């Protein structure tokens, strides 16, 4: 997730103060992980350096009274980001693979590692399913996306569990 692009995108609605921008980011994208103020200001400083935003200072204002506005270059940057597909990332699977291999190497139960992960995945899937039930169409679509990804992870967990013996022989010949 590119926080910079998200903040830029939010600025397309009009100039904002940093704290205002953070609030609106958290509302829309930050339900699981709200932004830290530090990150907001450091991101804005970077966008400023790159010429994607400019500052409209209010008379006699301190740093937190600065209003940020998106520039034409900023608008173009958001547009080209939106036009680019995101790279599919095997983010979690590599960590889990490491855990499974380590479990096998250290004589711990790899199947339990996998089943514990499954339980945690399912816990989150239940939560998303409940959120989906009570939410509007936008919530449903966002939750479904997450659910399909978690399901893919779970399939991998199941497949790996079925191959644990094989993997054990490979890891510890």
């Amino acid at each position, binding site marked *: 997730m590119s926080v910079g692009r998200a903040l830029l995108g939010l600025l397309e609605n009009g100039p904002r103060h940093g704290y205002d921008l953070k609030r609106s980011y958290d509302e829309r994208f930050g339900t699981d992980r709200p932004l830290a103020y530090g990150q907001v200001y450091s991101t804005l400083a970077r966008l400023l350096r790159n010429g994607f935003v400019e500052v409209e200072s209010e008379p006699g204002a301190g740093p937190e009274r600065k209003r940020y506005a998106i520039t034409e270059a900023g608008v173009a940057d958001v547009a080209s980001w939106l036009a680019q597909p995101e790279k599919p990332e095997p983010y979690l699977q590599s960590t889990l693979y490491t855990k499974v291999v380590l479990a096998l190497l250290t004589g711990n139960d790899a*199947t339990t590692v996998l089943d514990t992960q*499954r339980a945690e995945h399912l816990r989150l899937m239940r939560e998303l*399913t409940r959120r989906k039930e009570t939410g509007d169409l936008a919530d449903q679509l966002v939750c479904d996306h997450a659910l399909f990804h978690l399901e893919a992870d779970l399939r991998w967990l199941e497949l790996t569990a079925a191959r644990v013996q094989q993997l054990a022989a490979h890891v510890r010949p």
Partner: protein
Amino acid sequence: MPTEPLLVAEHLRLSFGATTALEDASVAVHAGEVLALMGPSGSGKSTLLHCLGGILHPDAGRVTYAGRDLTAMHDSERSALRRSELGFVFQFGQLVPELTCLENVALPLRLNGASRRAAHRSASAWLERLEVLDVAAKRPGQVSGGQGQRVAVARALVTRPRVVFADEPTGALDSLNGERVMQLFVAAARETGAAVVLVTHEARVAAYSDREAVVRDGRVRTVEYAR
């Protein structure tokens, strides 16, 4: 969970010839909960479900329902219990092809002695609850897979059972339809207070449960609420 479980399987063992389907399977189902049975193909999920529902008799071990030993019961007693307190939904509805959908749903009530009128009234209400009242007069062969499964769910719930057993109830449906069936199924079960034992290999279907148990090589690995 604080209460006594409603349905308990202890150390079930069951072989089909040389194949051991259940090795040492134990699991407990609490009143009103939705329990998902997951696990690889051939691990013994359906066999366990059938033992829990009194359809199969284990070679060893015991199934207790509401304090009564299902495995020691007379066949007739067990069938009566199945008809009045248990419900079943399978991957392919298993509706009676010669009867209309309405008659299919009314059938369990008729078998339990209800009048035709009362049974049909109740069956209509259930079809409506599952959003398939419009297919009431059709035969199972004339409805879609999704509609058929909703009818099957209605038929399983019409007697207000205390436990509904479902084996891959959405296995033949696409995601959107499968999810709608699960939503209606689980919501209806929760309304009537029925426990659901649900066999599925789909995580998105299992996500409608309260808890899962994983069946591997004829044994159950339960991961209790870790948090």
